[in-house]
């Protein structure tokens, strides 16, 4: 079993008010696959990862990571405090 790739699809989808079906239609995958991606049950291909990142208008590393993502709040406010 390959290690799970972390992603922020759920957060980004909620932020933009998208349903799983809307995201699935936009990137050409099945509705359930979006759920499995969010849950970490499935690691996307590089091509699909790029498609998702492009759809959200973000660089790949902002959506997918091999390491667990730090919470958005700690990333934003942590940097401001140290600056």
């Amino acid at each position, binding site marked *: 079993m390959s290690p799970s790739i972390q992603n922020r699809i759920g957060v980004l989808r909620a932020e933009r008010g998208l349903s799983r079906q809307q995201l699935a239609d936009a990137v050409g995958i099945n509705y*359930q696959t979006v759920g499995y991606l969010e849950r970490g049950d*499935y690691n996307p291909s590089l091509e699909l990862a790029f498609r998702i990142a492009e759809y959200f208008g973000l660089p790949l590393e902002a959506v997918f990571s091999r390491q667990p993502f730090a919470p958005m709040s700690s990333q934003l406010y942590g940097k401001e405090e140290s600056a």
Partner: protein
Amino acid sequence: MTEARPEHPVIAASHRRPLSSRVGSRRVRRRLIIATYAGWLVFAGCVKFLSYGPLPSIWLGLILVGGNLIVQAAWVTRRTIISTPALVDAELDERLIQSRNAAFRTAFKIFGLAALIGWLLAMVAMQVQPNNQGLLNSLILFMGVAMLATTLPTAIVAWREPDPAEPELSAG
């Protein structure tokens, strides 16, 4: 490409109704698979029991074929993301294609073994019981292997597919 393309000519030719994403929980699916194969064994046992009665052999054969058709209708003809072995690539995304290909690989191994064992047992049955009972036992074995050949890939997908995604809390 793995994108769903409704205009794909293969789909256009065979399209009957949209692909359903509704799948039950993994536990329910696994119980259904066990019930299907266990049910078929009980069914085969009943046919064997009937063979000791006055029913002609041709009827026993037809009952076996009918039982197989019912199992296949339940497992193969549905159009859900569990039925990927019966669907064309253009209807599936990359995850479903991977899942289907992995199921075919596993099914091929299991089916190969089952066919070999079934063939050997059928040969033994024909030798030991060179009469209608031997023929019937061979037919039951053949039908069992035939049923595996048609339903096993779908059953493997159903067995492995994770639980469906949780309902969304906020509407899009």
